[in-house]
């Protein structure tokens, strides 16, 4: 985590979100920071969750950009086929996680995974109750997420198609509610394990755990970093891989794409050995979804 922190500092020059400034080169962000209204306007043009695009669209963004970035994108192209962009509205991590997770369930029809996460969701509900949250403040958000899980499993009347999943992810009344569900879950996890998270929070923002949750987790539009990702991954028991696309390079001049796997506490070795089914692309200030080439996917259907 410390490394990621340093990395973030190094990259502060390109620290504003990326997707909404497609046509700008690296390093121009500082001028945009003075015009937040422009940025907000631009970000509103991007749907909450975009269409799946070939990874070449990523390279096209940086055609005249930094050679290190172009080289890293080439490396990514060996492992990943596609990218799905999310709106840079401060909710991009949660939104990316939401779509990536639900899409995985839709494609895999993994009922065991749905049963497993439901157990964790109930634990999160208890956590919030124990922390003194009023039930009605969070129950609608929980209910909506559970409803999506049921709708995604085929075989019932309510079963939804892939197109419907995309539509719902773009519909504020569903999409924002699920983002908010994740924010509740994340805040609950951070607060119950306050001792664990406190040093990271103090290092990042000089706030108390309570202040951090109130100001940086629970309000919509507040950006996420490794604290949020760790907490969400642990609370729901879902591993997340984050690929870092930034201008850092190795001391010997070689270029590799750093990644970090957020593996929930209590994961056994066998599960840990397989790659997480959620992969996000991180560029300073923004998360999108990455799609691995099929050979890189978790070999879960081998022998079936």
């Amino acid at each position, binding site marked *: 985590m410390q490394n990621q922190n340093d990395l973030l500092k190094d990259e502060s020059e390109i620290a504003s979100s990326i997707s909404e400034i497609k046509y700008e080169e690296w390093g121009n962000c500082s001028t945009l920071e003075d015009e937040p209204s422009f940025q907000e306007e631009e970000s509103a043009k991007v749907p909450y969750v975009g269409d799946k695009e070939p990874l070449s669209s990523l390279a096209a963004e940086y055609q005249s950009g930094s050679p290190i970035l172009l080289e890293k994108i080439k490396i990514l192209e060996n492992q990943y086929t596609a990218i799905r962009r999310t709106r840079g509205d401060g909710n991009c991590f949660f939104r990316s996680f939401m779509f990536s997770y639900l899409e995985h369930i839709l494609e895999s029809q993994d009922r065991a995974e749905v049963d497993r996460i439901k157990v964790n969701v109930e634990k999160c509900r208890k956590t919030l109750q124990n922390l003194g949250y009023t039930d009605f403040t969070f129950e609608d958000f929980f209910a909506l997420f559970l409803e999506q899980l049921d709708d995604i499993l085929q075989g019932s009347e309510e079963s939804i198609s892939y197109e419907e999943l995309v539509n719902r992810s773009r519909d504020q*009344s569903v999409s924002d509610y699920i983002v908010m569900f994740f924010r509740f879950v994340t805040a609950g996890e951070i607060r119950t394990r306050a001792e664990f998270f406190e040093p990271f929070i103090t290092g990042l923002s000089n706030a108390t755990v309570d202040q951090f949750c109130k100001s940086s987790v629970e309000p919509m539009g507040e950006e996420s970093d490794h604290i949020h990702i760790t907490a969400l991954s642990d609370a729901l028991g879902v591993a997340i891989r984050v690929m870092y696309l930034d201008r850092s390079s190795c001391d010997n001049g070689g270029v590799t794409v750093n990644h970090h796997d957020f593996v929930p506490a209590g994961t056994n070795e066998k599960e840990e050995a397989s790659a997480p089914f959620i992969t996000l692309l991180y560029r300073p200030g923004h998360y999108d979804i990455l799609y691995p080439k099929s050979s890189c996917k978790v070999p879960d259907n081998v022998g079936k």
Partner: protein
Amino acid sequence: MQQSRARLFKEYKEVQREKVADPDIQLVCDDTNIFKWTALIKGPSETPYEGGVFQLAFAVPEPYPLQPPQVRFLTKIFHPNVHFKTGEICLDILKNAWSPAWTLQSVCRAIIALMAHPEPDSPLNCDSGNLLRSGDVRGFNSMARMYTRLAAMPKKG
């Protein structure tokens, strides 16, 4: 629309249950419109607002609870973070720090806390803020108390 209505209805039921628990707040929903509420809050003790009863108006937007309610003082109040003419309130949870974990009831509690702990560095009422910033607590208290007496106390007889 459906979501906000359902949520507000739950808050309505909760308010009925909590009435006794929080005697400082009386939150009432408009008879015909669940998106319009008013509240009567008691000025906190050991402040120049003590003894006063202040009326707040809530306008709840359609995307509630994803977006905060709009709240303003209907009763005139002399406070650094309340606009003297419009009653607009400068409070982070009513703006960017809002989250659905808050309720109309807990917003009232936050406003009572703001009355007891003004933030003179982000004033909506500069005269009031300047008195506090220059350290003239006595001057501030007497102004605030005067307006409490004039506007927030029931007239005798």
